[in-house]
């Protein structure tokens, strides 16, 4: 393939999230999937993957050979995923309360019914981890294990994001109301601006090097596709996320209310695995690590790996690092 043809082909979508799965339950845009087993079931405790409202969840199942979902299935786990979906104008008033207090518990109930289990593992990634932790604090019964991957907890350790969301500078409610649906591209640009050279220049320099070297671009294309595949963020949920988390830090300092219930992370007593990346600039380790000291869990493990926010989960480093460590930790806690 000539360089021009390769670059042209780079614009085509790459098949992602291809591991076969079935729909268990839907509610509005939220869908609960159950992945089809690839190996004999070795564990009775199902795993529920909770992703964020930013970007799409197929990063957990990016490509054959680069899929955390597939890895768990091959280890004999019963794997479910809650996909928050692609919001429309009618969802602009959707709040985190509705998702955490209505959608997530109902998804859990359906998962337990379909799996026949009475305990489950919650796996949350980034904002999904925050939502999972809040759910585990509000409804600790049945949560056997909580895995928090780069999960923001103490938002006053957010680094540059903390500067940008200064309440004296940014009125989140005005922005959320004005947009209605905050564009996914806008949030994507915001995350890319944390490392502007790497995200706007280096990534394409790398592509050029690969093209000139005649290397296959599929992996690069899949990752680039995901990075630029943002979804609209409901304005009400956006305002709540920025105001209550980044600006007031209510989850860590106390006072966060979800559906009129005060969230107390100290009610979490499930076995906890908190994972951070030393090169994570989106959720720096000081932002995620404090969860270890707040929960009531007797079984607590902190795993810190030399990787970035996304590199923790996908790529060769993840295959040899995070994936086996997570599945080993889960194996003794899933029967």
């Amino acid at each position: 393939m000539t360089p021009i043809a390769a670059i042209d082909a780079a614009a085509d979508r790459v098949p992602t999230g291809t591991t076969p799965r079935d729909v268990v339950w839907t509610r509005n845009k939220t869908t609960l999937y159950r992945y089809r087993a690839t190996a004999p079931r070795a564990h009775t405790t199902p795993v529920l993957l909770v992703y964020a409202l930013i970007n799409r969840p197929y990063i957990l199942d990016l490509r054959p050979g680069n899929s955390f979902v597939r890895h768990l299935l091959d280890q004999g786990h019963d794997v479910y995923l809650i996909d928050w979906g692609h919001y429309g104008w009618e969802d602009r008033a959707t709040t985190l309360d509705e998702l955490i207090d209505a959608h997530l518990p109902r998804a859990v109930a359906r998962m337990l019914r379909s799996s026949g289990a009475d305990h489950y593992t919650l796996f949350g990634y980034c904002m999904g981890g925050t939502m999972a932790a809040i759910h585990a604090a509000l409804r600790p019964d049945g949560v056997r294990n909580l895995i928090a991957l780069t999960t923001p907890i103490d938002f006053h350790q957010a680094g540059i994001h903390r500067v940008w969301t200064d309440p004296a500078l940014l009125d989140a409610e005005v922005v959320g109301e004005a947009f209605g649906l905050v564009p996914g591209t806008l949030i994507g640009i915001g995350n890319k601006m944390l490392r502007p050279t790497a995200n706007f220049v280096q990534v394409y320099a790398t592509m050029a090097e690969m093209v000139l070297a005649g290397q296959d671009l599929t992996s690069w294309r899949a990752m680039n596709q995901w990075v630029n595949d943002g979804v609209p963020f409901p304005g009400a949920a956006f305002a709540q996320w920025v105001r209550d988390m980044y600006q007031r830090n209510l989850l860590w300092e106390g006072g966060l209310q979800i559906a009129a219930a005060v969230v107390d992370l100290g009610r979490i007593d499930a076995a906890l695995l908190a994972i951070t990346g030393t090169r994570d600039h989106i959720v720096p380790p000081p932002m995620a690590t404090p969860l270890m000291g707040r929960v009531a869990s007797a079984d607590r493990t902190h795993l810190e790996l030399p990787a970035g926010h996304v590199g923790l989960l996908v790529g060769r480093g993840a295959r040899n690092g995070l994936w086996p460590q997570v599945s080993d930790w889960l194996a003794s806690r899933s029967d």
Partner: protein
Amino acid sequence: MSDGGAHNPDLLALMREAYTRGVDAWSSALEDLVSSEEFAANSAQLLTLYAQQQEGIRTASRLAAESLHIPTAEDLARVAGLVANVERKVDEVSESGGAVVARLQAIEDRLGGLATASVVQTRLKAIESKVAALATVAPAAPTPDLDARLGAIEERIAAVATAPAAAPALPAELDARLAAIESRLAALASPPAATATKRTGGAAAKRTSAASKRTGTAASAGRATTARATAADES
């Protein structure tokens, strides 16, 4: 004048070299810029203005569509919201139905348990009838050995029950030591009590008197207490 290409620069290599040399400095400078408060203030203002501009465009579009009697985004969203509401209600009904099914299953399980209990009762009755049948059967002829042993046991029990309680013989040494202790106690019990020891002696006498009603072990404990009180007084 061409020199055969020996000095033609490889532009790509030059660009790569320039980029590699400068990228770290550019990265550092840009990251410092975006993390500054000035950048945050400007970008927040820009974001707010952009959002308000989008809202203005949206409002103008809505008014234009309404004037032309064309469905607006709000109209479509309203219909979509109604559909989502219906779906939510169906989900609630489905969940309630699932709860009913679960309760029915629990009732069935309990009924199954009751059935099990009745089976157990039936078996118990069968066992009882068998035992009753055995009780009416004439006893088989007793085995001679067993009968003799039972008889010997019965005789021994009877002998023990009727014979007067005889104190077991004590070893000679133990008997002598007990006799010595008893004689010393008798000697202690008779001498006049001193003033300083009146109260303790009196208390000790009471204890000794109480102890004498107990068995030998308890009495010796009382006697030891008395000996200690006396020794304390003397010191």
